[in-house]
């Protein structure tokens, strides 16, 4: 009975999303004069590249317009509300001053570098370095329609299971070996470190932090409500290929990755989903990752993959800073008082909880038992460090 409602919601979402996915490719919203899937380094450097990028510009323009619209509407609503109007300007206006920030941590710098490098590899890698390792499948959402990917992404065959088994057995073997190998080795650290869609959302979040815009804070109930949508998407992702459609028809990555690689393609519904994802990612960090089907599948393996979030339950003061910081809304990380391993199926290993943890050694990220990153009081207070004269930093 408890799950009945969730199952019903999941099936409704499944049918709706499935229908969209099934017919998505029938409605191109923008078509280039010639659909040209070939690309080369020369093309990237020529003016043709700009015309090929038009769908991307449309997406970026719509995203920006959408975000501005939401902010303006929110401000108008706040102004109209008697209670909130007083702080409407303080909350939504442009601000002078900066919040105190802790000094940059190497972990975050490393994470961003890896994400950006991998995005380069996934989009232009094949063009620059050749296709030597293209047989390897990495489970990320980076579009394999972009034939110039240096490594291929597992998402293609996972959403085309019917095609997978028509391949020669060597290919099947390599596909499974590399996909499962990566999942075992890295787990959902792939989401936090490699995934280009994750990078795009992180960039949107950075923009929000820079502009000091108020985000949308989800609470426990809302995070719970997302679960049916996640399961519906997993079903669509794996199952739709047997019904003749497939997830790629409306996958948001399909609208961006090939275009960036210089292929002239049309803009389908997927492009508008990308707009939605970028907007959602702006107001709520990593919004898509909450429902990402590939991530959910990888989450099944969180108990055996090497990356872990560990907690020293003795040091924790249950201040909830980790929960506030967590883009995936994992509450267990601060309420847990018994287990050392607090890795959850939803954890994308972004390290944000550790960065925001004010207790020494309370949280740490380990890989095969080796500590990679540990929380520290000193680091979190580094933004408040006084200058040489002993006065607090203004």
């Amino acid at each position, binding site marked *: 009975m408890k799950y009945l409602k969730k199952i019903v919601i999941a099936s409704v979402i499944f049918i709706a999303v499935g229908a969209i996915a099934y017919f998505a490719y029938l409605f191109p919203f923008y078509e280039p004069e010639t659909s040209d899937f070939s690309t080369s380094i020369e093309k990237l450097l020529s003016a043709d590249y700009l015309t090929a990028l038009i769908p991307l510009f449309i997406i970026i323009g719509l995203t920006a317009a959408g975000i501005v619209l939401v902010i303006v509407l929110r401000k108008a609503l706040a102004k109209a509300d008697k209670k909130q109007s007083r*702080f409407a300007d303080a*909350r939504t*206006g442009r601000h002078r001053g900066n919040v*105190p920030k802790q000094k940059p941590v190497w972990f975050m710098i490393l994470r961003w570098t890896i994400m950006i490098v991998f995005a380069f590899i996934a989009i232009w890698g094949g063009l620059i370095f050749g296709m030597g390792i293209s047989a390897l499948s990495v489970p990320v959402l980076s579009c394999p329609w972009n034939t110039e990917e240096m490594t291929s992404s597992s998402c293609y065959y996972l959403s085309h299971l019917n095609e997978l088994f028509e391949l020669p057995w060597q290919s099947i073997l390599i596909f499974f070996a590399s996909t499962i190998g990566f999942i075992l080795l890295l787990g959902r650290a792939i989401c936090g470190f490699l995934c280009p869609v994750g990078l795009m959302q992180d960039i949107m979040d950075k923009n929000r932090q820079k502009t000091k815009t108020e985000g949308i804070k989800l609470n426990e109930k809302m995070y719970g409500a997302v679960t049916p949508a996640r399961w519906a998407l997993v079903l669509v992702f794996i199952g739709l290929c047997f019904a003749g459609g497939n997830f790629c028809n409306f996958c948001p990555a399909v609208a961006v990755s090939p275009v960036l690689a210089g292929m002239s393609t049309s803009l389908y519904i997927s492009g508008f989903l990308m707009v939605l994802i970028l907007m959602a990612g702006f107001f709520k960090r990593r919004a898509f990752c909450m429902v990402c089907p590939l991530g959910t599948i990888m989450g099944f393996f969180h108990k055996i993959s090497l990356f872990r979030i560990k907690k020293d339950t003795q040091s924790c*003061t249950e201040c909830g800073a980790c929960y*506030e*910081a967590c883009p995936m809304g994992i509450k267990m990380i601060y309420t847990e008082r018994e287990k050392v391993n607090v890795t959850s199926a939803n954890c994308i290993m972004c390290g944000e909880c550790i960065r*925001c943890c004010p207790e020494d050694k309370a949280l740490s990220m380990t890989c095969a038992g080796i500590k990679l990153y540990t929380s520290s009081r000193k680091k979190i207070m580094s933004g408040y460090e006084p200058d040489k004269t002993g006065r*607090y930093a203004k």
Partner: protein
Amino acid sequence: MTESIKHENLKQRQDKRFINKETQTAAKYLRRMKELSGAPEGMEPFYDTLERIYVDMEYIEKKPGQKTIGTYCVMTPPELIYASGAVPVKLCSGNYTAFSVGENIAPRDACPLVKAVAGFKQTGLMPIYEDCSIMVIPITCDCKKKIAGMLSDSCDIMTMHIPASRNDDDIDEYIRQLYDLMERLENVTGNRITYESLSNGFRKVGYAQYELSEFIRLKKQLPYLIRGSHAMAILNSSSYMPADVWGRALHRVNAALKKRIAEKKTVTSKKLPRILLTGSPIVFPNIKIPLLIEEMGGIVAGDETCMGERGLWDPAVITNDSFDGMIRALANRALRPCPCPTFADNSQRIYRLKQLIKENQIQGVIYHVLRGCLVYDHEYKRIEEELGKLGIPVIRLESDYNEEDIEQLRIRIEAFIELIKLKQAPEKAVAVRRSF
């Protein structure tokens, strides 16, 4: 006519007696604290502050025209008050003289802290109370609720509802209350709270917490680096000093402690039993318990009281750079890490105690209960059980601001310390270390 003059005279005499008694007790405890050996360099600003407030009976240090906002409990975020351009002052009182006045106003079973507050407000003689433009009173217990009503007769107050649990909905509700509080603060001070002023408020309090983290880190390294009574004086005076001034003063103490570590100096060469003090707040001048512990040959190596370490320990972690993000951080800090027994499920306090015991190598716990402080008394049983499992002896000391039970307390504390000494291995003859 003569009747009213007579009355006036009586009032004047009463007031004079009150002031005399109040300043005498405060001066006495200050003297006892100063007489205690091993104070680090740089303690003067803290002594001066306590003296200024309780002996000289003056206002707190502030810029001319700056408003003072009275607060109680750790749940009122000082960041907001600094952001509105005012100075916060914590009004939880430990004063015996005011307590005895308050006994006639508040019911017999009310806690001494509340009686003392009522007493101060009744006499109208304490400048830090009279100076407050508004008092912010988080309702953490029944006594606080009723004192809020009592204070509202003579002073502008704002109550804040403290939820019984710390779920997401409770945090959201508290955020709404913080916005209400900001509105009140803006009305009182006439300043707007902006993004810039709020982040500067964060910087001020953050700086104080930065120095406090450093202080506690140093204290942990070597259990005998500073006496608990001195630490208590430092932490108590944070209630009456602007956060940045306090932080700067603490910076000097930290430097002195670092020097001690480098020179391998400690407050004593003997192996003193290390005591953890927890329970009801210990507020100057009611510091008889830490003083007794240290005069009887123990050392207060850790404290888990809301006027002590706990009150300032948890920083507000900004996870969102927006204005609302900062308010969220404040609400989150005020409720989630707070081991105040006002919350229904407060098991995190036990974990906190265990952590303190481990970090400070605690050998015994003294559980201080102010008579009438039911919420703290309730938790004693559970804590005694849990610490019993660790083999840490605990005693419960019930007391109020009265000095009459001091001999009885002395005997109990002495016996407790002797018990710990018996348990620990006999001291080996070691080379005499330099001490003060």
